[in-house]
């Protein structure tokens, strides 16, 4: 049998899991983003540093993300809308999960594609109807996976990926959010 390689170092992840079981303080991470208003709804947010394993960490390079509203919102569309970043987060998190779980289960992936759709009633953010929430009403993710596995094994990959997904959890469960003016 050929060696399975989805490009995931499962051994390192399993070792980290064992090591952090006995060192919960090292498992405390803080992810950070810094945002700056440009004009109108346009802002840029950069991400470079984070904290974890007991010390400051730095990504290989800084990433900068532009957010704006589309022209039909009377904006300049210098970037995707903020709520679309949630779709980016969810899709990439679930996809990473599929790859990791597949590697751990010895399943060779050939392609993993997904579409994410978030249903949004914008009357909420416009204040047009106070019974309508601001956020998504629902989110639907559809995976298309080509792999050396049965349909049931693929279904199980996707289910397990949701079970271990940070973004899936953050979207499906409430999170305490504090916003302050410094």
């Amino acid at each position: 049998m050929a060696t399975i390689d989805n490009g995931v170092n499962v051994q390192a992840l399993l070792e980290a899991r064992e090591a952090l079981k006995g060192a919960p303080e090292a498992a405390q991470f803080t992810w950070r983003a810094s945002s700056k208003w440009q004009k109108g709804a346009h802002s840029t947010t950069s991400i470079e540093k984070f904290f974890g394993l007991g010390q400051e960490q730095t990504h290989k390079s800084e990433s900068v993300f532009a957010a704006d509203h589309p022209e039909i919102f009377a904006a300049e569309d210098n970037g995707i809308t903020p709520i679309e970043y949630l779709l980016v987060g969810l899709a990439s998190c679930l996809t990473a999960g599929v790859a990791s779980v597949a590697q751990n289960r010895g399943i060779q992936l050939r392609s993993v594609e997904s579409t994410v759709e978030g249903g949004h009633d914008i009357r909420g953010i416009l204040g047009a109807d106070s019974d309508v929430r601001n956020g998504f009403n629902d989110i639907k993710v559809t995976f298309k996976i080509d792999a050396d596995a049965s349909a049931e094994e693929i279904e199980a990959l996707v289910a397990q990926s949701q079970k271990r997904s940070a973004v899936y959890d953050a979207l499906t469960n409430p999170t305490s959010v504090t916003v302050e003016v410094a």
Partner: protein
Amino acid sequence: MTTVVVGAGHAGLAASHFLTGRSIEHVVLERGEVANSWRRERWDSLRLLTPNWLSRLPGHHYSGPDPDGYMTSGEVAEFIEHFAGVTRAPVRTGTAVTAIRRAGTGYHVVTSGGELSCRSVVLATGACNVPVVPAFAAAVPAGVRQLTPFGYRGPEDLGEGGVLVVGASATGVQIAAELRRSGRPVILSVGEHVRMPRLHRDRDVLWWMDASGVWDQRYDEVDDLTRARRLPSPQLAGTPERATLDLNALTGLGVELVGRLAAVRDDVLLFSGGLRNVCSLADLKMRRLLAGFDEWAGLRPEAELPPTRVPPAARLRLDLGRGEIATIVWATGFRPDYSWLDVPVVDEKGRLRHEGGVVDSPGLYALGLPLLRRRRSTFLSGIEDDAREVIGHLAAAPAVRG
């Protein structure tokens, strides 16, 4: 005294049986009566999950007219008491253990009826001493009555009005079904759960567990032992109809399903939006389990059970201020209580540190815990092999006989 056994339930009495067999002097200390928790800490309608023919204690089998039935709690208590009588277990009832300390090469045991010194101790106090309730229960407004399975006896104890049952293990699904049948509106909050049909190919699903060898899997062969030991009890009920009590059955009764209860914020309950995935996971695991049985039996797979019907828009919030819910039943699990054990063998999560019942302190042993030595350990019929092996270890330990 050579050995003190704490608890006269099925586990403590099985320990006593094997200690007697090896002529090891011992006493079984029991805070209440024999099989105390079966008499006092169970709701009225509860029946054992295992069929009668599979409810075995060492040398002691069910011999009544209904081998495929399930004992009521009262019948379980009688069954255990009968075993205590037959084995002439030296039980001291009404004797609560209040402290156990290491003393020299043995242990010092403080009880409500005096103190004892011994060489070894068998902890057989059970896994379900205290109902676990999430911390945010404190934020539930005072107008809503809160109950745990220890305080719940039956629907007649509850006032009128809707009930939220939190937790979908055997306890939660059984209580939700019974409350719904009493005519009350019932909402069931569902997290990760274990789905099982009562019967597979006309045989009890636990017959398959037993016969196919699933229950014989040893604790040191299980992939993630911590997780396996924490697994919620399967969605089973022991009813005369041998009916399946999965979420589809509850939906059929008119129980409303919502996701895992995640928080209470300003008198509003917030449920997880992940209900669909916990149901998918349970469906997948159940299908894998049943396919494994078929493969073991050399049978071709038959039609699969329908997937769990998840409401298309399960609600995510429930305002307790609106009076829809009069009572919350926390079926959110149980934990053992070792607060009286002054030996450093309990981890930061309150679990006993042990290897197959051999506790991490010389001369200290445990019996009657989930997956103690094998999957069968969680059930009544698992105690015979566990007790034989654990008492074998105790007997072989140096200087056990003083």
